[in-house]
């Protein structure tokens, strides 16, 4: 397996060129679930390098192990074989530099805290404590996701899209280097989803993050990411690694109608639908 560039202490300079320092490495990773009767291999032979500042989307058919991969990368699940490194350090549990945004926002936000209280939770459990008073920071992160008006409301008083924006604000308040998102926008309606996508792109540009975004929606992957990784339909590693690199800033209308967008969308849909027959 090809080893990546020398693991250096990763900076967080914002770069979409892919030549930045490697932040996250998966080296020949496998995951086998063992039950009493049998073993199920969800994923094997997966290697991947993600540079600091990249926005990477993971796509693939259902059952290709993309959610398993995200749980492995975020340290929530131990790998059966291989190694995952963050900033050169092999991980053993969730890496300190990373935060997750889950699909099930209703079970991730703390319902006994207001939106501001949830963001304060992020500030208290931060990777790099931010400078400044908590009140100003709460206002900053809520402003970043457009929830300044909802600070004192409880999560269950908000729409699904607003709850997920609160979850993003909470994750950002912890000042992570890495943000993992697992089908994070699948649970909301189409209009809220478009809003969430733009909120995320804005926050990514502002905060200088590295984002790994799992989705089953090819359009969403092309719209958000610079690089789309297609997983093999039977969990046999990476099928294709496409650098889309559409111009930024992106817009829901202009980007989605551009010839490059349609080209990549077609190419990726083909890869996902036809599986390995058309693999590179």
């Amino acid at each position, binding site marked *: 397996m090809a080893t990546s560039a020398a693991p250096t202490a990763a900076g967080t300079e914002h770069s979409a060129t892919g030549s930045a320092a490697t932040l996250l490495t998966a080296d020949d990773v496998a995951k086998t679930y063992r039950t009493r009767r049998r073993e199920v291999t969800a994923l094997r032979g997966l290697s991947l390098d993600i540079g600091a500042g990249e926005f990477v989307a993971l796509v693939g058919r259902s059952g290709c192990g993309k959610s398993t991969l995200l749980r492995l990368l975020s340290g929530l699940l131990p790998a059966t074989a291989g190694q995952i490194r963050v900033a050169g350090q092999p991980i053993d549990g969730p890496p300190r530099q990373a935060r997750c945004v889950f699909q099930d926002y209703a079970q*991730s936000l703390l319902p006994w805290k207001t939106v501001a209280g949830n963001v304060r939770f992020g500030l208290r459990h931060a990777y790099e404590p931010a400078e400044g008073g908590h009140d100003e920071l709460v206002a900053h992160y809520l402003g970043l996701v457009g929830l300044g008006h909802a600070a004192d409301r409880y999560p269950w008083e908000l729409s699904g899209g607003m709850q997920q924006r609160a979850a993003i604000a909470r994750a950002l308040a912890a000042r992570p280097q890495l943000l993992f998102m697992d089908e994070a926008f699948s649970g909301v309606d189409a209009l809220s989803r478009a809003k969430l996508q733009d909120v995320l792109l804005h926050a990514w540009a502002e905060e200088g993050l590295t984002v790994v975004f799992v989705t089953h929606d090819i359009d969403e992957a092309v719209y958000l990411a610079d690089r789309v990784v297609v997983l093999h339909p039977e969990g046999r590693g990476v099928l294709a690694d496409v650098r889309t690199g559409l111009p930024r800033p992106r817009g829901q209308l202009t980007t989605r109608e551009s010839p490059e967008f349609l080209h990549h969308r077609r190419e990726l849909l083909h890869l996902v639908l036809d599986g390995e027959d058309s693999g590179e």
Partner: protein
Amino acid sequence: MTTNPTVTRTAGAMPLPATPDAIPGTAGAPKRRPWFLRALRSRAFGWLVFAAALVAWQRYATANPSPRYATVTDVAVQWWDQILGGPLLTATLQTLRTMLIGYGVAAVLAVVIGVLMARVRLVYVLLEPPLELLRPMPISAVIPLLILYLGIDDAMKISVVALAAFFHILLNAYSGAGSTHRTMMDTARTFGLTWRQTMAEIVIPAAAPSIFVGLRSALAASLVISVVVGMIAGNDGLGHLLMIQQQSFQVTDLIVGAVTIAMLGYALNSAFLFIERRVLHWHFGATRTHD
């Protein structure tokens, strides 16, 4: 059933199912119940019937004077006299004290042990067998043993009350702390919370609605037991007072004692609901919006 007001009378040949909403095609607004049915369903009606029963009791007791009955007014006057001072006040305060200390001890122990059992495998393995054996034992079977070891004073009484309250809270704390949603636990892990932070900031708040269910049934149980243990120990409290009054046929005083216990229970439950509404306001709000 034949006069069920929600059945739509204007329905045609087809009998329509009775629903609380207006049925399309029938006249206008949703059906309103007739005034007498609305009155029958109001809470005031229940209190009115209760007041009528008191009046009936008063008339019967006045018309048939007997040492076996007391009139409502006698009871009320006696209660007012005694609650301001004398043995009734002392006994009430003693019972209340025993109950609150026992209940408090049980609440702290049961929440701590319940959460630990749900979250630490070793604690579960060690405590599950003895607790499961103790749990079905009637508290009355334990009292003689506790009297033998602890005597008949506070230590015994508080222990009995605590024991009676303990399992109500333990079971609910255990099941509440054991069913924290996986995504919530994943959230705690990815935010790097330590074990203690996870318990304090995630597991216990998430289990709070369940813990409160246990605290509420434990409250009723501990009031009952705090009175009964006074009867058995026979030295102080409302239970003891009632036993003395029964032996001397003081019917009015017996009713006064019973009324006092009822009012104590009502007051404690109201206070509990008041606190619960404040602590769990988020829970009531969240469940209301998901109806």
